């Protein structure tokens, strides 16, 4: 292990009158959640020194329910089955179920950390305040520059400390800054309103009249728990969705789906097949009083929930349309109905946030939406990568693994073959934005990083092949 940067190292660089500790060719990783851990492991495997900064005092990020920003609730289970969720080089135990519980996934991350000896690279309790290019005005060249000054702070009022790194991986997660939709009259509404990030346990619902807003996987999970625990449950969605079951023909549905995807059939045909399968397994949703989907499958983030339709059929969940406005003690729906819940849960999702980065580094537009090559490479700074900013139609962790292998290979290539690296970078910075999703995705705040795992992995495969370098 390389010696720690604050064990008596003397700063030789100064920036704005403050010392900068030079960490040489070490790469900085922000966050020790699932994506951060994969980044450390793969960079290490490719021979890089790594410093990782984590604001919490343990690994796991969103998956660690002890963390105050964790969105976990007691019953969270994985949405994708094991083969799509695990890291491709560290399988989950055979003894685990198809869809593990979130506490199992945290145990998995902790075992990964210890197995690959990653803890020694992580600076716990350290928050990144700022990350900025070492030479701000220099035009980015693929070789030579690309250093980063990362300023961290221990605790809320700790002293700030800056170190210089050869690369920067942003793995701060995108499921911690709740998105609150603007509803008319919400501020006057008297009963309790919480965001799903504050929902932890079904006990919060017991005996109450609950309105769940949002048909993401979280919204559906909470609606199901409300059906089991609450006195009444309304589930408000702005459109009809395809509720895919978690099992089809006795096998995890995503595995069956990929059996078809492997055939490389045209999208239209796959959608037709999917619709047929849903028709046979789930049936006609309008019979249950649910609105008919206004789109084809693959056009919104897939919802995998076998229980929702079941509970609608048992009267536990009353499906209702979008909210028109909130009154003092009641909620008016777009169809004119008025309901009186005493608890409203906004399962309206999260927004990605990068407070420590200047938005232009990620070429972000006015809405703060970053424009990245392959949803990971900055187009302006060759050594900057964002890990795991994806909404795939499968598990995200397999994809992040290959993202980080790609990034590590890219850094190696810059060192080993500068000419090849220059050519690659010219392509990356000029390539128009692509969506890595053959389907027409419906507009929403996360639709822009909604990807098809097949299209995305194929693109990564191509990039990996281009970055091939002989063994070091």
């Amino acid at each position, binding site marked *: 292990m390389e010696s720690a940067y604050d064990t008596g190292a003397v700063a030789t660089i100064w920036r704005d009158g403050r010392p900068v500790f030079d960490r040489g060719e070490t790469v900085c990783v922000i966050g020790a959640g699932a994506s951060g851990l994969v980044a450390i492991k793969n960079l290490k*495997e490719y021979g890089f020194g790594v410093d990782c900064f984590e604001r919490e005092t343990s690994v796991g990020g969103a998956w660690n329910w002890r963390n105050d920003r964790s969105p976990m609730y007691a019953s969270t289970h994985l949405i994708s089955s094991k083969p799509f969720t695990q890291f491709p080089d560290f*399988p989950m135990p055979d003894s685990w179920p198809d869809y593990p519980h979130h506490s199992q996934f945290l145990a998995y991350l902790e075992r990964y950390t210890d*197995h690959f000896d990653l803890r020694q690279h992580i600076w716990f309790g350290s928050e990144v305040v700022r990350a900025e290019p070492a030479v701000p005005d220099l035009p980015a060249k693929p070789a030579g520059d690309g250093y980063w000054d990362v300023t961290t702070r221990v605790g809320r009022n700790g002293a700030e400390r800056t170190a210089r790194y050869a690369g920067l991986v942003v793995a701060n997660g995108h499921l911690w800054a709740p998105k609150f939709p603007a509803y008319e009259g919400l501020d006057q509404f008297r009963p309790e309103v919480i965001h799903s990030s504050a929902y932890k346990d079904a006990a919060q619902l017991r005996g109450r009249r609950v309105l769940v807003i949002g048909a993401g996987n979280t919204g559906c999970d909470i609606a199901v728990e409300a059906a089991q625990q609450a006195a009444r449950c309304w589930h408000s969605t702005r459109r009809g969705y395809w509720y895919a079951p978690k099992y089809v023909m006795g096998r995890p549905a995503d595995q069956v789906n990929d*059996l078809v995807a492997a055939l490389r059939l045209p999208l239209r045909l796959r959608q037709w097949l999917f619709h047929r399968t849903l028709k046979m397994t789930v049936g006609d949703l309008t019979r249950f009083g649910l609105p008919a989907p206004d789109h084809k499958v693959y056009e919104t983030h897939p919802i995998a929930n076998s229980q929702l339709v079941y509970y609608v059929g048992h009267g536990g969940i009353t499906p209702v349309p979008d909210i028109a406005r909130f009154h003092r003690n009641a909620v008016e729906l777009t169809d004119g109905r008025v309901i009186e819940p005493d608890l409203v849960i906004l399962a309206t999702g999260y927004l990605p946030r990068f407070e420590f980065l200047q938005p232009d580094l990620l070429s972000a537009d006015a809405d703060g939406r970053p424009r990245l090559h392959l949803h990971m490479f900055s187009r302006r700074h060759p050594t900057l990568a964002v890990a795991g900013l994806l909404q795939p139609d499968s598990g995200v962790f397999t994809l992040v693994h290959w993202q980080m292998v790609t990034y590590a290979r890219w850094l190696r290539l810059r060192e080993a073959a500068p000419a090849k690296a220059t050519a690659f970078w010219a392509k990356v910075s000029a390539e128009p934005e692509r969506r890595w999703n053959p389907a027409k995705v419906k507009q929403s705040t996360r639709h822009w990083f909604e990807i098809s795992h097949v299209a995305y992995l194929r693109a990564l495969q191509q990039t990996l092949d281009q970055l091939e370098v002989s063994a070091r």
Partner: protein
Amino acid sequence: MKIMRWREWTRPIPPVRREVLVATPEVDEGRPPVLFVPGFGHGAWAFVEHWLEHTASRGFPAYAMSLRGHGASGRAKRATLRAYTHDVVQVAASLPRRAVLVGHGASALVVAKALARYPARAGVLVSPVLGGLGALRGGGRRLFSRELPTTQARAYAARIGRAPALARWQLLVHRAPEPPVGDPPVLVVGSPDDRIVSRTGLANAARRYGGAPLLFPGMGHDLMLDARWREPIDAILDWLDKAD
């Protein structure tokens, strides 16, 4: 590197009970765990006989497993090379630290495949049977040198079974293993007097990983059971100490 892995996503290997035997060193000095994978027809017992304890006595946590359908592991209806590879990776990933994978005989091929699916600390291929007609040659007394007393050799031979026909067939017709992940050092160990694997076979296997084989003349195919079992395992552990 191939990242579209349809078969692994859509047709996961059904789990079976696995036999894993352990010998732990008295003091944990932070050395990597060593996982022994016995060849076709052998169970974990083949390593328990000498190598397992010896490895632990040299400070390495030592593990020996049986592939599905072998030893005390669960029966397998349809065992394939892919299922065996799955077994090895599952056990390796369950160990507390990054492991060294040691495969003997046909399991050297299984380990070579596992190295492409798990970033091992190192790989050791002992008397590797990576294909060819030699793979079909039977076992029995031929697996041991003359130095091993006949009664002992007979007793071992009686314990050795056969892998299912499908797996043996795959040994002849299989895709070459993908390159290892994480660039681990790989060592090939064998004997020029092995009656299953030829000397050129050993040299070819070693060349694939950019090295030369460590040779122990006068020994049979089953280095871990032969009379002079101590020499190869000491050489392997010395190599591991050096590689670390």
